[in-house]
């Protein structure tokens, strides 16, 4: 019994475990990823919570 590897939780199970706040953050990040082609997203965390989402979007002009 002790030798059986603990199965990785599925994405769905992990999502179900999240608080509403956490799900909101994920949704926002997903939204950003859907919208921009090149860029950076930064999550600023304080006291274990995401307090800020910053992003930079890069456009190639040439």
């Amino acid at each position, binding site marked *: 019994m002790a030798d059986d590897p603990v199965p990785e939780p599925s994405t769905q199970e992990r999502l179900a475990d999240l608080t509403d*706040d956490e799900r909101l953050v994920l949704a926002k990040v997903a939204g950003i990823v859907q919208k921009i082609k090149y860029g950076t997203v930064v999550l600023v965390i304080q006291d274990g919570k995401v307090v800020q989402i910053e992003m930079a979007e890069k456009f190639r002009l040439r």
Partner: protein
Amino acid sequence: MADRAEGAVATMDDRDTPPPKLALRDLVKTRLSTAGETVTAVDHVTLDVFQGEFVCLLGPSGCGKTTILNILAGLDAPTSGQALLDGRPIAGPGPDRAVLFQEPALFPWLSVVGNVEFALKHIGVPQEERRDRAMGWLENVHLTNFANAQPHELSAGMRQRTALARALACDPDVLLGDEPFGALDAQARELLQNEVQRVWVESEGRKTFVFVTHNVREAALLADRVLVMTAAPGKLLEEQRIHAPRPRLLDDALVSRVVSEIHDILMLEVSKGGGS
């Protein structure tokens, strides 16, 4: 907490469609070099700046960024293409587009407050009101104690702050900056960068700032949009749109990341043989 996260990702794409505050359409600027050759300073640049944006033009010397700024200021004219203000061709300089030069360009025969009053005079403020309003602008940049000093008695940083007060006294729609912090020491520069950030934030979207710089950190710190240019001839290379609230600090994670990305592309250009 979720609400703050919400506010921080204010997207710039939800623009309504009034015309851009400033626009360049296929702008070309050439000049004759001393050897008599035609040098292209700006090579077919098209660019929109919308009201309330803080844009930095960034690039090495010779990339045409100062030329573009002079054209926006009305101090220079395009060789071909258009430079538009509120949809109409730019006719000349004026207090609606105040300029901060690299040298403060204060008038040495006037005192600090006199310099600010000069700006008020030329936007039609009556004589009786000028002194009070000028002092108000000086208070905004924390220089009231030096109101009666002559420019040569001030440090470079204080002179540039006076120049900032004078430029803001015009109540311009647009503030243009031609490497305005380039000649300052690190401390004075940081002070002024914070002042400028503060002033822009306080304008609450009414004022548009366009600054030219070759300092990558400064551009990432101040701007919503950093337009990276390359030299010889001057072209737009890439744009970084930064969505991070202000005041920003130099060690901000996003700012640092953007800075290194810009450095990368500038290095790439140099190695390809373009620009210094």
